[in-house]
């Protein structure tokens, strides 16, 4: 185990978002170093690093880059800063505290892949974060880091632009993001072709998450091998785990990618509020199948969580204690997908609001015999039946909650009421200090 902090070491300190501060901490040295390397050597380092996408799918970053067709230009980089998966709140802090780390990662990625235009798609609600990034970009242009000549010397032009979204979870899906960037509503595209071949404006396009790219400078500086060594197996590095819900110290924790989930909750986050017991944990954003208390002693590495029947997803860990009504929690999750379904595919457009409705009546003591099986049937008819993974994301919570906590749903039907009452859900926790980077702890 290691205490290496790649992304969060300076979070919470003053002025880390400025170019001067980033430079003083050794910033842009990786870009300086990279300009003396062959672009292909950088791609190779990233492959060796075992860096896997931090947005949700966990796809190998270096491999993704290698899917770009050899001789088609221009190519584009789009950075996914549409952080919207419930329970996920890490990219926003990278934008707030280390915007230049992201910009350097973008510059390295573009240099490695012969890309001269990058767009950062920032979700519309991140007004402050977009302002900080815009200011950092302006500084980088002013200092001639970006523009006609990379770092003011390389024969390599690079432009980076911010493109703000306007409130649509679906635009975090990569092909919907491209549609939105082209000025349309966010309807996901059929794949294949994948964006690496036909992406933005029909051109080869790399789409990477903010956290993914922010790791690139460290990899270039320290080597892919060192990054791989921080993790385990086919997953390298540290990753940002966002913990929310019923814990004493919620926040963003940078830990080795294979860190233990139970340890994170019970030790780092100080356990449950008021010493209550864990009831359920969603380990990777609201789309990830739920784990029961007996299942949380598990590595959070991508393949380990997959083997445990769930997924590492976006790193959003939502902790629910034994006061939580899981019918209510699932109802709220179903409502989210019903709200955010883009409407393109019938199973998702019709099925999500239907699931929400059944869960709502169940929570209010108006459920009908057979509702549990009906919910399962609906979820099974949405998952795998849609163009994009939002359908699966809506189905997985329903399937997993029912599989692991079915008696609680049956009890709502049998008693014709919520056995938890309204209090548990609405209980105000007051403000707890959140752990946002070590400097504030």
């Amino acid at each position: 185990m290691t205490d290496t902090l790649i992304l969060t070491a300076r979070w919470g300190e003053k002025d880390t978002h400025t170019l001067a501060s980033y430079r003083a901490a050794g910033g842009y040295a990786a870009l300086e170093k990279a300009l003396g390397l062959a672009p292909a050597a950088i791609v190779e380092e990233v492959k060796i690093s075992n860096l896997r996408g931090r947005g949700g799918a966990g796809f190998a970053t270096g491999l993704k880059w290698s899917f770009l067709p050899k001789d088609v230009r221009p190519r584009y980089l789009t950075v996914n800063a549409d952080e919207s998966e419930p329970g996920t709140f890490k990219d926003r802090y990278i934008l707030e505290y280390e915007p230049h780390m992201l910009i350097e990662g973008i510059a390295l990625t573009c240099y490695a892949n012969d890309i001269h235009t990058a767009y950062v798609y920032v979700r519309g609600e991140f007004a402050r974060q977009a302002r900080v990034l815009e200011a950092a970009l302006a500084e980088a242009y002013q200092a001639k880091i970006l523009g006609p000549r990379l770092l003011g010397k390389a024969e390599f032009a690079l432009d980076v632009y911010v493109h703000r979204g306007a409130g649509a979870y679906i635009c975090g899906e990569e092909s919907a993001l491209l549609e939105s960037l082209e000025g349309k509503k966010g309807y996901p595209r059929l794949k294949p072709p994948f964006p690496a071949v036909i992406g933005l404006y029909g051109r080869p396009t790399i789409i990477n998450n903010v956290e993914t790219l922010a790791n690139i400078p460290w990899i270039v500086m320290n080597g892919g091998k060192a990054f791989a060594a921080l993790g385990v197996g086919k997953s390298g590095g540290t990753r940002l785990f966002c913990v929310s819900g019923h814990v004493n110290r919620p926040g963003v924790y940078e830990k080795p990618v294979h860190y233990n989930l139970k340890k994170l909750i019970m030790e780092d986050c100080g356990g449950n509020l008021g010493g209550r017991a864990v009831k359920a944990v969603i380990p990777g954003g609201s789309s990830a199948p739920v784990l029961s208390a007996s299942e949380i002693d598990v590595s959070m590495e991508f393949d380990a969580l997959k083997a445990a029947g769930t997924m590492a997803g976006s790193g959003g860990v939502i902790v629910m204690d034994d006061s939580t009504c899981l019918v209510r929690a699932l109802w709220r999750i179903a409502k989210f997908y019903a709200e955010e379904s883009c409407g393109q595919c019938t199973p998702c457009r019709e099925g999500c609001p239907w699931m929400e409705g059944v869960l709502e009546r169940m929570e209010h003591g108006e459920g009908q015999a057979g509702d549990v099986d009906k919910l399962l049937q609906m979820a099974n008819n949405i998952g795998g039946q849609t163009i994009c993974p939002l359908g699966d994301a809506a189905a997985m919570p329903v399937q997993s909650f029912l599989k692991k906590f079915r008696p609680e749903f049956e009890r709502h039907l049998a008693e014709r009421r919520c056995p938890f009452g309204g209090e548990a859900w609405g209980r105000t926790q007051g403000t707890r200090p959140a752990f946002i980077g070590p400097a504030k702890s």
Partner: protein
Amino acid sequence: MPNPDPPTAGAWQDLPEDGVRRFDDELAPILRRYPEDRRASAMLPALRLGQEIFSHLTPAVMALAADRLGVSPARAEEVATFYVMFHTRPVGRHVVEVCTNVSCCLSGADRIYQALKEQLGVENGGTTADGRVTLREVECLGSCGTAPAMLVDGEMEEGLTLEKVERTVGDLK
């Protein structure tokens, strides 16, 4: 439901001239971010700008964005009605948007949202009779560690308590 008042191509000419001029001035640098033959890419920023200047997206404002980007007004309307941050109806002088997603609710957001509805006397999406505040329930804002969270006129407020929210919203003029 069919829109009884669809945007027509020339409708933007009825907009106040100074507003249109400001729109054009501020749109120009934004357009430089996209390839020349891909002006339509600026649809989201153009609509955001239109909303900022004209307070909400009327058919005329949508037609203005469409005209400048070289697409049909229907395309602008399609986008304006897809994204939740665009208002196609009038809103109050202030917009308060409360997240009630799972992490926020585990920290008491439901109660905050209920209290705000009572304080303002409106339901979801409603505007107070004096036109002061529009209240909306919204999805995850990415502030789950510092939950509950809300947006006040687009700016994030985190670590909310009942008292803090009632004060903040009460102070809006």
